């Protein structure tokens, strides 16, 4: 589904990501892990269009998306969330999700200015779809709350839901479990499983190795900007290089 070929990202003299290749298969949950500063986020941002890759090529569903702008990547069908939650704080839960539908709205400026019937109809339709989605993810009761007033775990969830509303084929989650307690993490895990089962391919970065091991189908391990291992949880767990990267040389078996 998504192919990254030999992607490098350099900032001045610093090579943050060094020739990393990745292949994401449809319907899988693919995780990228690695110690701090391994270049996970940079790689992630290179896919989603925040950082331009210095070298390499990224294709998504057969189309070249290398160096596209963030909104263009989103329009190709890649949704994402952020490490530090970026909700629209002044809006309600409902409005946040409505924002997610942005690219599906056909009415333009003129329609909006004059409130043409087609625009009104579309808006009403959108509202219905939005309510449906909120009911499905069990946020319906909180739809009129200000997004900032939600508990932390639900803010994460809302951000994911908002990204889901864009109708992505691939959903990228940037450290979704960051700052969560074990029960919130467990809930999140169930939630990710559920949306994955509904047919959404997921790429996630995560620090919580335990969560990743029990969740991901494929795991890619980065260290110092390059890929050191890839495979299923068991394969990665027993990989010497991975153990070395995480625990240091002395733990090498």
């Amino acid at each position, binding site marked *: 589904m998504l192919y990254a070929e030999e992607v490098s990202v350099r900032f001045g003299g610093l090579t943050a990501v060094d020739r990393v290749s990745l292949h994401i298969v449809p319907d899988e949950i693919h995780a990228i892990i690695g110690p701090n500063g391994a270049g996970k986020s940079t790689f992630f941002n290179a896919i*989603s269009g925040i950082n331009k890759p210095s070298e390499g090529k990224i294709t998504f569903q057969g189309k070249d998306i290398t160096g596209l702008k963030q909104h263009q990547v989103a329009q190709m069908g890649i*949704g994402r969330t952020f490490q530090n939650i970026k909700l629209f704080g002044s*809006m309600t839960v409902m409005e946040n999700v409505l924002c997610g539908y942005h690219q599906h709205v056909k009415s333009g400026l003129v*329609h909006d200015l004059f409130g043409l019937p087609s625009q009104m109809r579309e*808006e*009403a339709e959108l509202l219905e779809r939005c309510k449906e989605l909120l009911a499905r993810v069990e946020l319906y009761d909180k739809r009129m709350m200000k997004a900032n007033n939600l508990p932390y775990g639900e803010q994460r969830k809302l951000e994911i839901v908002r990204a889901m509303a864009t109708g992505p084929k691939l959903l990228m989650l940037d450290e979704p479990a960051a700052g969560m307690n074990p029960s919130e993490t467990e809930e999140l895990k169930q939630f990710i499983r559920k949306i994955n089962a509904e047919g959404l391919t997921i790429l996630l970065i995560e620090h919580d190795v335990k969560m990743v091991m029990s969740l991901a189908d494929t795991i890619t391990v980065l260290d110092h900007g390059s890929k050191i291992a890839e495979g299923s949880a068991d394969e990665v767990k027993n990989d010497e290089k991975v153990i070395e990267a995480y625990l240091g040389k002395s733990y090498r078996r």
Partner: protein
Amino acid sequence: MKKKINPRALILLLALLALLTAFPFCVSNYIIQIAVYCGIYIMLAVSLNLLVGYTGIFSMGHVAFFCIGAYTSALLATKLGIAFPLCFIAGGIGAAFIGALVGFATLRLNDIFLAFTTMGLGEVIRIIIQNASFTNGALGVAGIPMPMLAGHKMTRIEFYFMVLILVLILVYLVSRLVHSNTGRTLKMIRDDANAASSLGVNVFRYKMTIMILSCFVAGLAGSLYATFLQYINASNFSISISINIIAMVAIGGMGTISGPIIGAILLQVLPEAIRFLSNYRQLMFGIALVISIMFAPRGLVGLNWKRIPFIASVCEKLKTNNGKEI
């Protein structure tokens, strides 16, 4: 979303309209003039609010677009003898064009840069107008004709109605706009541009669109101003006008429909109503601005008026059937 219209609110609205219609017949020419200025400032404040309040683009030189609109319209009318409606539209388009250029150059960069560029632009334009020959330099443009209406020159009262209708249309359109997908997108950009583009929003295009729209409206206001005053001069468009517009938006309430309207009326009428204040108009604006940011950062509209029992009861009555369900 079915909106049920509350009969009480409807009556209130009709009464307000009746008042606005009847009022010019009962007052002096001078008061009509103030009312027209009010309308023009409402247009300016509403258009600036689209940028500052809804999109988070801080234009500090809105007067530049006001000025371009006024001069475009005035010069077309006096030098080429073009009829008012065309001058009016041309004023808007002229301002929108310059707005587009400025936007194209600065909207990609950070907000301070835009604030600084627009502010400077206001001064640059004023100075060019003061020195250039095609604008009659410091002499200004005189003898701008009043628009024709049914074969005679518009009276002040008729002009008042024209402005009133334009303002009503503008407010209606803007309130439609901000409650639509476009409006939501603007608020997204204001809250977090990065998140907005992750949802597929072309941030630059939206900023550009709203910049052009806002400048267009400011240009229209400029055209009305020039036509009503019949004489304009570079000194009418000093930087303090920009600050007054900002004050209107900030004091009324940024990012609301009614805020800039209330702000514009208040700041335009108060200095006239309280005579001894009119000499200290600018000082008062400054003080009001500081106080409102420090103590009512969301403006007059954002204050908790319901703490006053009388207002609370009125609101209750108006709201009874009007629970907007989303």
